[in-house]
């Protein structure tokens, strides 16, 4: 083997590793910064300039402030509600649709597919959707973040493709044994499509967890705010002062800063704890979507 470019290639290799290392640091450091800042002493953090390499002092005051805010707890509760019922509705409706659309010899299936795919490319827009949601009486209800988003068209198509891949012979024999459509779906199709269904659960769950925009326009009652809306109030509209009521004005501003970082921790750490376990399913999902979509 000729290796004329040996030195250059080695240097290139080092360069690539260095570049990736920079990327890793740029990705991780902001998260470490948030963690350090959240445990820091409020006064010292506000006075500090530049990078943090460890917490400045150690204080749990900010976390106490976060949990004193009733919004965080109600927000978590509302988000949990949306997550559990939302994903359940998503899965049931998507699976039903995917099952019917994956059947052969159904006269209207082509029509259904066209009608469904069209919605990926054209929509009526935000205002008409708001008027419809208002019209069906979902305003100021947690269901407004669930029912109007019962099916994600992209996910429906992925699931349909997965259902189509189940061998016909299995269903035929089940039919001979007198199984109806419901039984075939629940006993044969779903168990055999578990990997794709796991991916769907994750996709829908992330959608529900992250969603804030439609909640912001459909829900006015503060008690029904999901976590992300509470986070928006604290992190972006700057309403931390209310959480440190027993402090003086200057202290309030200082602790407000650490409360923000502690809030980010409280809202993100649970997700990042789950992340290593579900990561590979997500990656699989991207592949499934890419190959089939």
């Amino acid at each position, binding site marked *: *083997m000729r*290796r*004329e470019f040996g030195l*250059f*290639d080695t240097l*290139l*290799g080092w360069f690539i590793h260095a570049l990736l*290392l920079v*990327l*890793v640091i740029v*990705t991780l450091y902001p998260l470490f*910064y948030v963690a350090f800042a959240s445990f820091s002493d409020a006064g010292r953090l506000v006075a500090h*300039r*530049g990078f943090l390499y460890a917490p400045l002092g150690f204080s749990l005051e900010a976390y106490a402030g976060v949990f004193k805010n009733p919004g965080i707890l109600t927000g978590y509760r509302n988000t949990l509600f949306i997550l559990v019922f939302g994903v359940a509705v998503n899965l049931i*409706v998507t699976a*039903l*649709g995917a*099952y*019917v659309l994956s*059947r052969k010899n*159904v*006269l*209207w299936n082509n029509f*259904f597919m066209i009608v469904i795919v069209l*919605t990926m*490319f*054209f*929509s*009526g*827009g*935000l*205002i*008409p959707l708001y*008027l*419809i949601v208002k019209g*069906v009486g979902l305003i100021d209800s947690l269901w407004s973040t669930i*029912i109007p988003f*019962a*099916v994600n068209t992209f996910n429906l198509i992925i699931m349909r493709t997965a259902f189509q891949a189940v061998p016909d012979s299995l269903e035929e024999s089940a039919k001979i044994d007198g199984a109806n*459509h*419901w039984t075939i779906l629940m006993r044969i199709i779903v168990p055999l499509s578990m990997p794709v269904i796991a991916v769907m659960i994750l996709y829908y769950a992330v959608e529900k*967890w*992250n969603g*804030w925009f439609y909640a912001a*326009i459909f829900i006015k009652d503060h008690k029904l705010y999901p976590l*992300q809306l509470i*986070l*928006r109030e604290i*992190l972006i509209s700057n309403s931390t002062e209310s959480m440190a009521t027993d402090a003086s004005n200057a202290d309030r501003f200082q602790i407000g*800063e650490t409360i923000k970082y502690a809030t*980010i921790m409280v809202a*993100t750490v649970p*997700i*990042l704890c789950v*992340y*290593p376990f579900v990561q590979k399913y997500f*990656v699989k999902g*991207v*592949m499934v979507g*890419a190959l089939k979509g």
Partner: protein
Amino acid sequence: MAKTASPAAASAGVRTRRQGGFGLRFVRDFALNKYLYLMMLPVVLYYAVFHYAPMYGALIAFKDYTPIKGIIGSDWVGLANFKDFFSSYYFWRILKNTVLISFYTLLFGFPAPIVLALLLNEVRSRYFKSFAQTVSYIPHFISLVVICGMIVSFTNNDGVINNLLTHFGYDGQAMLQKPGLFRPIYVLSEIWQKIGWESIIYIAALTGIDQEQYEAARMDGASRLKQMWYITLPGIMPTIAIMFILRMGNLLNIGFEKIILLYNSVTYETADVIASFVYRKGLLEFGWSYSSAVGLFNSVVNLLLLIAANRLTRKLSSSSLW
């Protein structure tokens, strides 16, 4: 049918038989599949109510909608809302912002994951590769609100990024209060969040490249750079083309949620895009019909862009969506 008048009786016979055949197929299909249609009912209802009814509701773009009169009862005004929009001071501002923010995101955000995938492909150590990959996905799992909260904190006048830049001569003001910095902040944070996640698809495509090609190239003395350019890149070109079309179709659907979280009245001049404008005019200022017209304009342009992108890539490479 009417033109074939001479064998009238015969054609009439055929017609009735066909109609009967079609009707029969209809009835037979329903008898056979009625439970399937029952299962499909929730899906059909969902699409009818939350996708097609809003499309019908978009008619209010051509009306002077008032909640009391409703969608049907409101008065027609023809294209008045569109004329209002096209002649308004905001039209060019939000169109320019939308196009520029999309363009910059495409220009820098689209190649970034491809570059990352190519870099990762060159890493020999499996351990380092999977570590770098895993780390690069993490931002995808942090919610948008939290990311924007971090951006706000870091770029604030006492924030860490702001502090860092003051060493390089930045004046230290809150960065999100500066119209000139909005787009760079938007695009850079977009790359930070999505580079790892979007690279997955290219990494998947890379595994599909025939390893013997590299072997042969090495035999011929091709350097790594040359292998990258002549084997790896062409190998993932179809994937790049498809991703490009999908991206084009969504060009005007830029992440307006992020814009709404980050902008403020000081930065409207560089940050306000069509979607955020629709949101503000429609839902905060109750200009229902006007903002529906703006939204409809956005949808139509999007559709045209998708079709154009598909045509373009079909001409340039063999891959296309349809």
